[in-house]
């Protein structure tokens, strides 16, 4: 690993932790006291393997391999695992664009509902991404590749606009 890569990993790891701590504080003070945020660690990657047993999961994503590649390649990434009463309810990872002007939300997945009830996750995900975006001075958040029309429409309700050419939605960070 190059020294510059290692240095970026160290510096951005600190900002990631700061953003997650701030987001957790904001979310918990809103009344979601059972919700906890963490980085994507071995515990989260182990916990998400149960999603493979879902009958309703629409993507059979391999988070272990995907995260491993993403982590190695993007030291400036943002990542989060969402836990509710100790149970994993969502995972997400993203990274700044090449020029750093936007923060991409590359992947997000909520725990399949046939494996148990859970709270919504996207409100918490967006708050955390918003905090990280402001800390790294990104001016836009891009949600990449919504899996279907229903999900895309849902994102649009948060004020995001769809760009068909790149298959993503964007919104300015004000």
């Amino acid at each position: 690993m190059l020294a510059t890569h290692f240095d970026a990993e160290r510096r951005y790891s600190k900002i990631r932790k700061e953003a997650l701590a701030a987001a957790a504080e904001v979310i918990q003070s809103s009344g979601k006291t059972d919700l906890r945020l963490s980085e994507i660690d071995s515990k989260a990657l182990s916990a998400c393997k149960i999603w493979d047993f879902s009958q309703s999961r629409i993507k059979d994503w391999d988070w272990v391999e995907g995260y491993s590649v993403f982590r190695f390649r993007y030291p400036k990434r943002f990542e989060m695992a969402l836990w509710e009463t100790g149970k994993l309810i969502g995972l997400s990872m993203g990274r700044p664009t090449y020029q750093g002007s936007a923060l991409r939300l590359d992947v997000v997945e909520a725990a399949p509902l046939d494996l148990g009830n859970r709270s919504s996750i996207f409100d918490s995900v967006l708050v955390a991404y918003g905090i990280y975006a402001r800390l790294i001075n990104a001016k836009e958040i891009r949600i990449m590749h919504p899996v279907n029309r229903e999900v895309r429409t849902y994102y649009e309700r948060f004020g995001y606009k769809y760009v068909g050419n790149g298959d993503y939605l964007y919104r300015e960070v004000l």
Partner: protein
Amino acid sequence: DKRRKKRNRDGWTLDEIKRKAEHELKKYQKIAENEPSDLASGDMDKIIKGE
């Protein structure tokens, strides 16, 4: 910790960023009451292939 005084390039402190987030979360939570059950987005295959 008193990090809290440090400002980002727009001149915002962490406390100001958190206040903004609190305001946004209130709006987001109302929208999220109708979250799709199969919430997901992204292209994991592309990531794994390094594209």
